[in-house]
């Protein structure tokens, strides 16, 4: 069974606390990707924005779009990120990037809760939050909270969340009723 271990945070740091422009975003992405690639598989790297007072759209776009696309492509295996310590200003422009680029990422709120930042439908968000609460979920777990949704559609949801980098498939189970069953863990 895959558990996702949280690594020590990666601090986003530019030349100053004000980050702007695509060039700076590219440099920040290079550093973050290097640390991600060097981290252990089956892990989550918290990305800490505590030292960032302002980040413009272009910098946020270059940084996060490159990183999240690399994660979603599978190039980095089972290595994921979690955003933390976002000021309202930074979160505003990150949200704008995610909305335009059809991206979504988990974030840790100041209250310690896991939420999603970006473009995601309500059913997918609900399924993800179920996985956060339970730790691991199967299609049957989702069916229990969405009885009107067919198992095939639920399986598609779980696969979609996996593609988005929000769930990782940990193992194949063998339910008592027979057949195959995949188990998913939340990236959180």
């Amino acid at each position: 069974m895959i558990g996702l271990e949280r690594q020590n945070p990666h601090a986003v740091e530019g030349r100053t606390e004000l980050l702007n422009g695509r060039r700076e975003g590219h440099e920040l992405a290079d550093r973050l990707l290097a640390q991600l690639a060097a981290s252990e598989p089956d892990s989550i790297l918290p990305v800490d924005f505590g030292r960032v007072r302002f980040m413009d759209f272009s910098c946020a776009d270059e940084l996060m779009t490159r990183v999240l696309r690399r994660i979603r492509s599978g190039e980095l295996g089972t290595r994921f990120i979690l955003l933390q310590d976002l000021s309202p200003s930074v979160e505003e422009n990150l949200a704008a990037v995610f909305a335009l680029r059809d991206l979504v990422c988990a974030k840790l709120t100041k209250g310690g809760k896991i939420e999603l930042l970006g473009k995601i439908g309500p059913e997918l968000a609900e399924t993800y939050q179920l996985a956060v609460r339970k730790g691991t979920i199967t299609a049957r777990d989702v069916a229990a909270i969405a009885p009107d949704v067919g198992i095939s559609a639920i399986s598609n949801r779980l696969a979609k969340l996996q593609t988005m980098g929000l769930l990782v498939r940990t193992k194949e189970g063998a339910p008592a009723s027979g057949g195959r069953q995949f188990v998913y863990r939340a990236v959180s």
Partner: protein
Amino acid sequence: MLPPTERELQGYLHRMNFAAVTSPLAILEGTAGGRRASGPSEVLLELTPIEQQADVEQVIRTILGRVRRILEGELGYGERDVTAFSTVLAEACTNICDHSADRGVVAAQRYTQRGGTRYIVVGVADLGIGIRQSLATRYRQAERWSHIQAIVNALHKEYSRHPDRGLGLFMVSKIVGAYQGSLHIRSGDARLYLRHRARRLAASPFPGTQLAITLSARGVQERT
């Protein structure tokens, strides 16, 4: 350069730091820039040269410091609004550094319409290579575009399949729309005015790029 004789205009140029910014380029005769006008200043950001990223950082720092107090106190801006305004300036100024192959200037003022509505105007300009040539350095097909086509395409979220096209100017237009503002872009032989819809205006040739951005003081709507 001969300065204006009207005192009010002289005071305005002084408030806008005109003499200091133009001194490397021109000799200003007379006393222009030395007189202070009476009455409150509408200046948000004086004429500020933009040559490198550090200049853009200084502009952002000014917005988040001194200008923020004015935006919050006089225009009713909250945190999100200040972020939006800072983003508009950062994107417009960074374009000078990254795409103009030249230096430029930025300035911002607040105004009050007759009915009492307050709004901000931001001006950004450079004498660089212009939007068409800037796009052509990255996308060869842009060499065949007219200037107006280049401006329009620069504002589109997707005009090509290139996945990593910069969206700075597009974001500026989105923020302007959210603030019921307007965006005026001039480059080459073209001028485009956006307020609710796009209109092409007559233009004399301009080698670089000029932006005039207005934002209302009425608060935030969804940007995207």
